[in-house]
C-alpha cells in the first residue's frame, strides 16, 4: 500500500454491488422512514427484506469477479459469498421476528431496520477483510450498530443496561484488538494481509512483538465469539436485549466473528501454532466446559441459551484449534495435513449454518412467547403444557433444542459429527473426548425444557398466545434443521470447496 494505487473501479462494480446495496439500502430505509408520512408500520420491514433478498439475487446472477477489491483492502470469493448468503438469510428472519414488536412494546421503532442493515454491512465487510484496517472498520460498523440494537429500546432499563454493558466491554476489547493490530503492523511494516503473510515468511515470527500482537488480537476476537474468559457479557446482554436481537447476535455476529477468526489464525499460523497453541487449547476446553456447566443451573431460558452459545463457541473453537494444530503444519503443508485443515474448516462452516438455523428457530419461538404475555417469557417453568396449547410452537422449539443438544437426525448432530471427526483425524483425541462429554452434559438442560413443555400440565401462569407468521417461519427453519441433518452431504461438500479457496 506504499505507492499510490488507483483501483480500477469499473471492473469491480460487480463484486462491490452486494455491499453497495446494503449500504445504500440502509440509508434508503432511513430516508423513507423520515419523509414518507403515509407509511404503514410494516412497510419498512418489507423494504428491508427486499434489500436483503436483492443481495442474494445479485450474488446468484451477478458476474463472479473474484479476487482483490479496492486495491487489496478486501477480497471476495466463494467464502465471502457464502457468508453474505448466511447474513442475508439471518437478516430476513430477524426482520420477520421483529415486525410484530410494535404490538408488544406499543411503540413504533423504525430505527431497527437501518441499524440491522448497517450491522449486516459491517459483517459482510469483516468477512471480506484483506487488511487490518478493513477488519477494524467492519468489526466496528457491526458492533456500533449492534450496541444500539441491544440498548435502544427506550424506557426499558434492562435493555439500556445490557446495551451499556455490551458497549463498554466491547470498547475495552476493541482497544486490545487495536493494540494487537498496531503491534502486528509494527512487525510487518504494512497492514495488508499480504504484507503480514510476507513478513511471516521472511522474518523470524517468534518475537515478542508479534506474539503479543497476535495474543491481543485473539482477545479482541475472543470477546466477540464469547470465549472464556472474555464471555462475561454474554448472559447479561443476551438476557437484556430484545429477543429478536438476541437471536440475531447469537447467530450472525458469531458467524462473522468466527469467519474472520478463521482467516486470522490461518494468516498467523506460523506464529500461533507454536506460541499460543497450548493457551488456545486450554481456553477451548474451558469455554466448552464452563458454558455447559453454568447452563445447567439456569432457570431463565434466554440466559440458558446464552450459556449454551458460550459452549457452542467452545465447540467451534475446537475446529479453529484443529486448523492451526502443529500436526496440520506450517505454510508449506503436506498433502495429508492440508486435507485435515480443510475438513476442519468445512466443519466450522457447516456448524455455523446449522447453529444459525437451530438458534433462530428457538429464539423465534421464545420471541413469540414474549409477544402476548407482555413481559419477557424467560422462565422455563412457565413453558409448561405448551405442547397442548400450541403444538406447532412446542414442536419447533423442541426440534431446535434437540438439535442444539446434538441428537440425530437433526443438523446439530451432523455438525458435531463433522467437527469431532476432523479433530480426531488431526490426532487430537483427548480434545474430541472432552467435546463429546460436554455435549452429553448439555443434553440435560436442553431436555429439561422439553420435559416442561411436553410432560407438565399447563397452568394459569403459563405462557401462551401465537403470532402465526413468526411461528410458521420458525417451523420452516425447524424443517431445514431436519433436512440438513438427514441430507448433509451435498452441503458439506460445498463447504469443502468453499473453504479450499481461503487457504493461502
Amino acid at each position, binding site marked *: *500500500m*506504499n505507492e499510490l494505487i488507483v483501483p480500477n473501479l469499473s471492473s469491480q462494480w460487480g463484486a462491490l454491488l452486494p455491499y453497495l446495496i446494503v449500504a445504500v439500502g440502509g440509508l434508503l430505509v432511513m430516508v423513507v422512514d423520515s419523509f414518507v408520512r403515509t407509511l404503514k408500520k410494516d412497510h419498512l420491514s418489507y423494504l428491508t427484506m427486499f434489500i436483503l433478498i436483492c443481495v442474494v439475487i445479485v450474488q446468484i446472477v451477478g458476474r463472479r469477479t473474484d479476487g482483490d477489491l479496492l486495491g487489496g483492502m478486501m477480497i471476495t470469493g466463494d467464502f465471502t459469498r457464502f457468508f453474505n448468503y448466511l447474513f442475508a438469510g439471518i437478516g430476513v428472519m430477524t426482520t420477520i421476528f421483529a415486525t410484530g414488536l410494535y404490538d408488544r412494546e406499543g411503540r413504533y421503532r423504525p430505527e431497527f431496520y437501518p441499524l440491522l442493515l448497517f450491522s449486516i454491512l459491517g459483517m459482510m465487510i469483516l468477512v471480506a477483510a484483506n487488511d*487490518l*484496517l478493513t477488519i*477494524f*472498520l467492519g468489526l*466496528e460498523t457491526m458492533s*456500533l450498530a449492534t*450496541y*444500539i440494537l441491544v*440498548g435502544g429500546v*427506550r424506557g426499558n*432499563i*434492562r435493555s*439500556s*443496561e*445490557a*446495551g*451499556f*454493558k455490551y*458497549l*463498554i466491554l466491547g*470498547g*475495552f476489547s*476493541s*482497544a486490545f484488538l*487495536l*493494540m494487537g*493490530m*498496531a*503491534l502486528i*503492523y*509494527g512487525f510487518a*511494516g*504494512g*497492514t*495488508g494481509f499480504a504484507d503480514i503473510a510476507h513478513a511471516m515468511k521472511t522474518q523470524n515470527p517468534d518475537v515478542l512483538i508479534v506474539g503479543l500482537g497476535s495474543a491481543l488480537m485473539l482477545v479482541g476476537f475472543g470477546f466477540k465469539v464469547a470465549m472464556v474468559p472474555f464471555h462475561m457479557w454474554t448472559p*447479561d446482554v443476551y*438476557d*437484556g436485549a430484545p429477543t429478536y436481537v438476541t437471536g440475531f447476535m447469537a447467530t450472525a455476529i458469531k458467524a462473522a466473528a468466527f469467519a474472520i477468526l478463521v482467516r486470522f489464525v490461518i494468516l498467523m499460523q506460523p506464529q500461533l501454532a507454536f506460541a499460543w497453541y497450548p493457551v488456545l487449547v486450554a481456553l477451548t476446553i474451558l469455554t466448552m466446559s464452563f458454558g455447559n456447566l453454568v447452563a445447567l443451573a439456569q432457570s*431463565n431460558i434466554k*440466559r440458558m441459551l446464552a450459556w449454551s452459545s458460550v459452549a457452542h463457541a467452545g465447540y467451534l473453537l475446537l475446529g479453529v484449534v484443529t486448523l492451526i494444530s502443529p500436526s496440520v503444519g506450517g505454510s508449506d503443508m503436506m498433502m495429508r495435513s492440508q486435507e485435515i485443515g480443510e475438513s476442519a474448516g468445512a466443519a466450522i462452516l457447516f456448524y455455523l449454518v446449522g447453529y444459525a438455523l437451530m438458534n433462530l428457530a428457538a429464539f423465534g419461538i421464545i420471541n413469540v412467547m414474549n409477544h402476548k404475555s407482555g413481559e419477557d417469557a424467560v422462565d422455563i417453568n412457565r413453558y409448561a403444557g405448551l405442547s397442548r396449547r400450541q403444538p406447532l410452537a412446542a414442536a419447533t422449539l423442541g426440534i431446535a433444542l434437540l438439535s442444539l443438544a446434538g441428537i440425530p437426525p437433526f443438523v446439530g448432530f451432523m455438525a458435531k459429527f463433522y467437527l469431532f471427526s476432523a479433530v480426531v483425524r488431526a490426532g487430537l483425541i483427548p480434545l474430541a473426548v472432552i467435546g463429546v462429554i460436554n455435549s452429553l452434559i448439555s443434553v440435560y438442560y436442553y431436555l429439561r425444557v422439553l420435559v416442561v413443555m411436553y410432560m407438565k400440565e399447563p397452568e394459569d401462569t403459563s405462557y401462551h398466545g401465537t403470532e402465526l407468521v413468526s411461528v410458521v417461519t420458525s417451523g420452516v427453519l425447524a424443517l431445514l434443521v431436519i433436512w440438513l441433518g438427514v441430507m448433509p452431504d451435498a452441503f458439506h461438500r460445498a463447504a469443502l470447496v468453499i473453504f479450499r479457496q481461503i487457504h493461502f
Partner: protein
Amino acid sequence: MEITLTHYLLLAMTVFLTGMVGFVVRRNAIVMLMCVELMLSSVNIVFAAYSRFHANADGHVFVLMNFAVAAAEAAIGLAILVEIFRRRRTVNVDDLKALME
C-alpha cells in the same frame, strides 16, 4: 538524549495500562468510558510511531479511522448512559443490577 521508537512504545504502553487499570478500578461509567478512550488513544501513538518508523502511511490512515470510530462509540455510550441516568439517577456501574440473577 535521542527519542527512539522504544520511547514511543513505552509511552504508549504506559497510557494503555493507565486506561486499563482505570477501567478495572473505577466504578463511574463516564470515567470508564474515558478510560477506554485513553486506551484507544495510546494505540494511536503506537500506530503513528510505527508509521514514521516504517516510513509508510498505513499507520496514519489507521489513526484517522480510529479517531472517528472512538468518537462514534463515545456518542453511543453517552446516549445510553443518559437513558440509564433518567431512570436510575446514577451512573455508578455497581448500581446497574436489573440483569442480576
